[in-house]
């Protein structure tokens, strides 16, 4: 469905990097480009959308050639039929939510499809509001709905949830997945959040220094790389209390204080104020389900 091979020289903060990527996606697939920022993931999306011109390469979607350097083909972005969700959402501030979607419909205006999208994304009651009056999560929904209003052949998500807080993020991940399945939309997402990649993508492509270093299903790709049989935290020792033969240590990890037991031997060169690493092997962890909405009393925020 999507075939892409491209090369482009990028001037990044870490010097010149050559972006050199090949990828394919089948219809309905959710593909993620994963890697640190500044390695050309976003550039890759922009090349597909026609916002950035590759130095070399070829981009074809559904048998239609959008870009081919050797044949001199470069279809303008207006004709590429992509749904691009920008990192800053790029909603038009002068238009209401409904008008933001409506302008993307093309002609003739299919108002019924527009209503369907508003319902589907649960933004019906926001339709008259201006984007500046919406919360981050709401803006994100509108941006996604607007991208779909275009009836795209390909959905491009550029770190769509990076600006949102944890809970909203999680909710919208489910939303994105639901919508993507609903329309069987071929989707290409850029992300550097491992959890997000795991939850959403069918396949992942790991990019480092402009090049593909791994590709496959998330479980395959990450099983040997980032997931290991142990937990590991780094923290600061706040207090040490002798307790018979052992010591009780209070350690600050993130913004929580954790108390652990250490032996005299372990304590030999550890003092208050030291930075320590806390490691636990996988054979005896306690696994408990976390209830996300414990006795939800407050009405749900839209």
């Amino acid at each position, binding site marked *: 469905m999507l075939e892409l091979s491209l090369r482009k020289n990028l001037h990044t903060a870490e010097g010149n990097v050559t972006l050199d990527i090949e990828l394919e996606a089948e219809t309905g697939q959710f593909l993620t480009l994963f890697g640190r920022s500044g390695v050309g993931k976003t550039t890759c999306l922009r090349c597909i959308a026609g916002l950035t011109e590759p130095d070399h390469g070829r981009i074809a979607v559904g048998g239609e050639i959008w870009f081919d350097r050797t044949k001199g083909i470069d279809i303008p972005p*207006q004709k590429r039929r992509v749904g691009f969700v920008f990192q800053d959402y790029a909603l038009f501030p002068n238009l209401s939510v409904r008008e933001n979607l409506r302008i993307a419909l093309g002609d003739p205006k299919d108002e019924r499809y527009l209503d369907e999208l508003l319902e589907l994304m649960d933004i019906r009651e926001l339709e008259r509001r201006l984007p500046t009056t919406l919360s981050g999560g709401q803006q994100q929904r509108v941006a996604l709905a607007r991208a779909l209003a275009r009836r795209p052949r390909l959905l491009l998500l550029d770190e769509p949830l990076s600006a949102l807080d944890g809970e909203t993020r999680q909710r919208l991940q489910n939303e994105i997945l639901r919508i993507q399945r609903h329309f069987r939309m071929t989707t290409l997402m850029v992300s550097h959040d491992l959890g997000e990649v795991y939850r959403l993508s069918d396949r992942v492509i790991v990019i480092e220094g402009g090049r593909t270093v791994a590709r496959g299903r998330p479980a395959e790709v990450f099983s040997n790389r980032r997931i290991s049989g142990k937990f590991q935290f780094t923290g600061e020792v706040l207090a040490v209390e002798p307790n018979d033969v052992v010591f009780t240590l209070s350690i600050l990890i993130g913004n929580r204080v954790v108390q652990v037991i250490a032996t005299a031997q372990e304590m030999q060169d550890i003092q208050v104020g030291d930075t320590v690493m806390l490691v636990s092997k996988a054979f005896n962890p306690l696994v408990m389900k976390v209830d996300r909405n414990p006795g939800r009393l407050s009405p749900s925020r839209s």
Partner: protein
Amino acid sequence: MAYDWQPLILTLKLATVTTAILFLIGVPLAYWLAFGRFRLKAAVEALVAMPLVLPPSVLGFYLLLAFSPKNAFGRFLDETFGLRLVFSFEGLVVASVLFSLPFMVHPVQSGFQNLPRSLTEAAYTLGLSRWKTLTRILLPNIKPSLLAGAVISFAHTIGEFGVVLMMGGSIPGVTRVASIAIYDEVESLNYDAANFYAFVLFALSFSILLAVFFINKRALGPH
């Protein structure tokens, strides 16, 4: 005593016509300077900004030479279009447009440049043509800049003196605008008439600028 309103009416007429023409020229020029990539862009920007630093008499002097029927360009205009720009109202308009160009172009250009790039890009990916992107998205989102450009151009044209004097002289009802009339009246020791024109210009300019600041504050402040 009855005052002659004609110079004031002429001033307002000149400012209105000039602002309308400047809007039509200035907005495309600002768009071109904000988004275009071409060599000599710096030179074009410097030329547009010239009236900010140039003595009005310099601009007026060269325009007078250029449009004089004794020179090639002026003769060409005269013979082909029957346009004689020297010492005429049309000439004043041309001179004022050139002289107030930066006051229209600069706010609009920076308005365009301050819009997030992603707005234009989003419009393109949603299938909007360049023209539609400009008219439906970009221009509505820089309304305060457009207003500032128009109002300041208008006010600046009211306040013009040197370039108008060089190009138009002081022909009553044709080129004798209020600022010139003040000068003439003072020269003939008619302080009372001069004061009348001066006071009206003062009050007018103040109210225009007050309106701009008021509108900008509302546009930028909380709703």
